[in-house]
């Protein structure tokens, strides 16, 4: 790097490296011997990484001030594995506004969750293991965020999946947790298959087009020296995209560019739990609650959004792929919000709310185009604010669960007096997610709605406004039921405020949820020239706020008091309510498809074939290998004469081969 870039810029690798080192040290050396130390050291490493991320952001925005050009820098990278010149797997750190944004979100939330977990997991038998996995996750997530090329992104993507699997199944002696971890892993792994094919398509054609592209663009002159065929900077380059889209090869009439972007989006949809791959996220709530706050609310699930944002120029160039993103996102946000209104488990409501908000971010990305990029900014803005208030909601839920020892909102109630801090912070987060001025969610949601309206997607805009109302309704539903009224369960009567290590991170997040809305995101995160903050767009604000207020009012009228109106309403709606409560029976549909159709009709014959033919073949090959080994070991007679004979025979063999090779 040039000399004027700062120290942190040149040492940006520290940000993912610190959690990695801590993972190794804590996992191997500390956690077996000194449980408490594991938590402390794991936490300190993340805090250090967080400080590094802040310094890095400060350095970057000093070099390239807000409102101006924000180039993509790769201040540090090295070639890890080279197959041949120009085709190698690199490891590096990419710095640009969105990677910085994600670094800040991930390190901040992770640090707070680490601190919180020191109290929450206190006395748990897997305390050391827990922090080891948490560090592994943070490292993988940061590695994903800073990936300068799609290979590193994919590797870290899988690592993130593994750490999520390990943490969901953290209570491995609880069958439901084990089942949930398997479900999460299999569903996301299935989606990653699409991503992998997309990566292979992109890198194969990327490598083919690369020489042409270098000749045309003059990579060196454009400051793209050292660009590899798998780098994002190259994959997002308009010249490359034009060449890729213009290839004659098509698949079922779809251009290869659109096909690969749709496949990449399949991976993103799996990780971000978009319909119909959303089924793993609600079950993932089996993990410890701080894990839900970190992984399944604030960071890992937004990896899909980040991936789409990272490849945004490619998605926008394809057009069709972007529309797919928009409609999948919009549908998921509505679908999940509707289910969220009926769930009884506080963490599940939050999980469906996460799904719904992720859909928001996706739809914002999908509606933006190369010319009209407000949605891109809005999506990142919402990712930013959502991370804080959603993590806070989960932490609050964790504090409540910790105190009441149940997940069901109907066994809580009246907690505002016993847990005042939790109550206030939860209320702040609820207001933020409902989009009430002046809390953070108001501003980011406003931008998303403005983007949808401005791009002319009126249906999507309508859906988004409706979802804003539903969000306010289901959030205030759990808020009223949990904190107001009388204590209903035995646990609720004996609840007490969370310890300081737990409420302090929550208080900090509450402040962030309240004020981050005023952050001038468009000055920092934009494509092309900065689209100035539009101020308050009344055509957006009035319907959104109106719907949110109606939602709150309905929640208040139904759930303040003994809730008999809600019961009556549910009875009136009858089977509709039941259908929604059962999550539209999507899980049952999957079960039917997997069990009845795949297992019975397809898997059975395959299993038979597998058992008789494949296993037989494998056993046979194993047997052949072993008996081959045994037979060959008989050659080893122990007789020096035999050895000498073989030696001499070998020489004769070499002579023969050399002779035939040279004649």
């Amino acid at each position, binding site marked *: 790097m040039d000399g004027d870039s700062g120290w942190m810029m040149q040492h940006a690798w520290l940000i993912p490296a610190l959690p990695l080192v801590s993972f190794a040290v804590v996992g191997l050396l500390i956690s077996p011997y000194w449980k408490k130390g594991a938590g402390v050291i794991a936490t300190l490493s993340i805090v250090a990484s967080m400080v590094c991320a802040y310094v890095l952001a400060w350095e970057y925005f000093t070099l390239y001030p807000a409102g101006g050009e924000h180039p993509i820098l790769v201040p540090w990278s090295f070639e*890890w594995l080279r197959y041949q010149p120009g085709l190698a797997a690199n490891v590096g750190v990419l710095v640009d506004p969105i990677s910085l944004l994600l670094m800040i979100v991930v390190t901040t939330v992770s640090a707070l969750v680490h601190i919180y977990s020191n109290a929450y997991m206190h006395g748990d038998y897997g305390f050391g293991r827990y922090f080891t996995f948490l560090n592994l996750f943070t490292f993988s997530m940061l590695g994903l965020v800073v990936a300068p090329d799609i290979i590193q992104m994919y590797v870290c993507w899988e690592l993130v999946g593994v750490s999520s699997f390990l943490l969901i199944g953290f209570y491995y002696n609880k069958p439901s947790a084990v089942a949930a971890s398997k479900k999460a892993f299999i569903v996301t792994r299935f989606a990653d298959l699409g991503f992998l094919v997309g990566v292979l398509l992109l890198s194969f054609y990327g490598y083919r087009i690369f020489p042409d592209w270098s000749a045309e663009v003059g990579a060196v002159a454009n400051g793209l020296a050292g660009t590899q065929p798998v780098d994002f900077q190259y994959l997002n380059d308009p010249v490359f995209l034009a060449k890729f889209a213009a290839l004659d090869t098509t698949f079922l009439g779809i251009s290869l560019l659109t096909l690969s972007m749709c496949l990449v989006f399949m991976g993103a949809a799996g990780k971000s739990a978009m319909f119909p791959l959303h089924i793993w996220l609600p079950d993932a709530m089996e993990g410890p609650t701080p894990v839900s706050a970190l992984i399944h609310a604030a960071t890992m699930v937004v990896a899909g959004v980040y991936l789409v944002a990272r490849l945004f120029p490619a998605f926008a160039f394809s057009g069709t792929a972007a529309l797919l993103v928009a409609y999948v996102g919009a549908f998921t946000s509505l679908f999940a919000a509707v289910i969220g209104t009926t769930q009884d488990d506080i963490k599940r409501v939050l999980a469906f709310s996460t799904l719904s908000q992720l859909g928001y971010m996706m739809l914002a990305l999908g509606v933006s185009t190369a010319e009209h990029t407000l949605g891109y900014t809005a999506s990142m803005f919402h990712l930013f604010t959502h991370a804080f208030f959603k993590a806070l909601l989960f932490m609050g839920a964790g504090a409540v669960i910790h105190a009441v020892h149940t997940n069901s909102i109907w066994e809580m109630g009246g907690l505002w007096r016993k847990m005042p801090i939790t109550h206030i912070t939860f209320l702040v987060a609820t207001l933020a997610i409902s989009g009430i001025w002046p809390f953070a969610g108001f501003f980011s949601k406003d931008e998303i709605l403005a983007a949808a309206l401005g791009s002319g997607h009126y249906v999507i805009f309508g859906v988004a406004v409706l979802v804003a109302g539903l969000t306010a309704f289901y959030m205030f539903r759990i808020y009223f039921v949990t904190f107001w009224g009388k204590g209903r369960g035995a646990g609720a009567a004996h609840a007490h405020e969370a310890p300081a290590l737990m409420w302090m991170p929550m208080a900090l997040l509450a402040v962030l949820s309240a004020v981050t809305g005023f952050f001038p995101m468009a000055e920092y995160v934009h494509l092309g020239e900065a689209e100035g903050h539009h101020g308050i767009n009344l055509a957006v604000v009035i319907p959104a706020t109106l719907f949110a207020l109606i939602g709150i009012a309905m929640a208040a009228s139904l759930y303040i008091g003994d809730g008999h109106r809600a019961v009556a309403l549910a009875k009136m709606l009858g089977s509709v309510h039941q259908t929604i409560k059962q999550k539209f029976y999507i899980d049952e549909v999957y079960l039917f498809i997997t069990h009845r159709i795949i297992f019975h009709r397809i898997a059975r014959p395959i299993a038979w074939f597998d058992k008789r033919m494949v296993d037989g073949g494998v056993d046979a090959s194993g047997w052949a290998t072993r008996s081959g080994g045994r037979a060959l070991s008989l050659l*080893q007679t122990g007789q020096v004469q*035999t050895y000498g004979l073989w030696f001499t025979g*070998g020489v004769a063999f070499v002579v023969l081969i*050399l002779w035939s090779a040279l004649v």
Partner: protein
Amino acid sequence: MSIIIPEIIVLATAFAILIADLFMNERTRVYLAPAAVAGLLLALAVMVVHTPASGALIGGRFTMDAAGWWFKILFMISALIAVLLSMDTLDGRARVRVRGMGFRGEYYSILLFSVVGMMFLVSARDLATLFVSLELATLPLFVLAAWRRDDPKSGEAGLKYVVLGALASAFIVYGFGILYGLTQSTDLETIAQRLAGERAPAFWLAAALVLAGAGFKLTIVPFHMWAADVYQGAPTPVTAYLSVGSKAAGLAFAFQVFYRIFGDALPHWDMLIAIFAALTMTLGNLVAIVQHDIKRFMAFSAISQAGYFLLGFLGAAEEGVPAMLFYLLVYIFSNLAVFACIIWFENETGKGQIEDYRGLSLSNPLMALGMTLALFSLAGIPPLSGFVGKFFLFSIASKAGFHGLVAVAAVNSTISLYYYLRVVRQMYIEPVDERVPAPGSSVSIGLSLALLSVPVAILGILPTVYEGIHAATIAWLASMPQG
């Protein structure tokens, strides 16, 4: 002059130990091993800090180049670790005493003689020096293999080794003789020039004889037969040294022969090399599966690893040489780490069957972890260094068009994973049936294992070392006779 200083230091240390041993009693002889370590460390320091990367002495008969520099470093590191691993056994600190392992002065000085031989081997530039230094490197190994004089197995190992080693040496001498007859020169560069375009049958015979000699050192099938018996019979610290030192010397000899004498003909030999590579890795792997004795098991593992090395000769030298050197480095670290555990376990329990390692993860988690890491590296699990080393070698073969061979190598890697995991399984998964007394710890072996585990874990992630080797190789190739 300064290029020969490391050799002189090692040689002087060897003699000093031999002479000092005469005036010492059993109690003070514990200082001999530290003396050997100090000598090697000093030589290493001189090598790293002071020695230029190239130069020539004695009329060009002793030369220094970048690849040679790396080889010498590797020889000295192997010897250093071998001394550290031998200390406990020789000083009688092992809980289960090995009888007949005395004579420390002779042991260390003979070990050092062997290192000097290897170091001269890479610097040799004519046939006579090459042969004499090869013998200097090998003869001490015969003696070391037979070190336990009251153990018939050790004696048998030494005898087999010496008989077959003599056979190999005889073939090499015959080959060299024919080469001299063809070219009337002992100077490697002159030989290479005069051999260019040579097609006489005598040339093939000479090439075959020399290649067989190199194959013997490198344990290439079918010249590998000695390895299993010698590895198993020799005292375990000697086996550790044999498994890396002898292989490194074999690779150095192969470099001398392939790149300096037969550089012109090498491209025509890919098929031969490919066949030997496939044979070696397959046979080594298949036989390793059915072994129960861990030393014999490691012998076959070492044979199969030699097959991977051969892949490096298939591509262009500027790709192949750094890949082979890097894999040698990785192999030395990983293999010595495994042997550190084997030696420690044998010292503590006197046992050496794979099944005996049952439950080691509970009784000594750090040792088990070190061994697991090293075995995974040998099997080539990412991101450990063994994976990256294998990746480079495999990609050379694939670029040279030997896709079938790469497939064979990949299948072999999978098979090897099976048998390396057999050991891990014993340590981690198999239930512990009896309460075995927890083995004690050892400072020298623990230190070696710690020193070895770090590069095993990080060499695959940090590319600096590979880049260093790569740069050195480019310089080395530039200095080659035919470029």
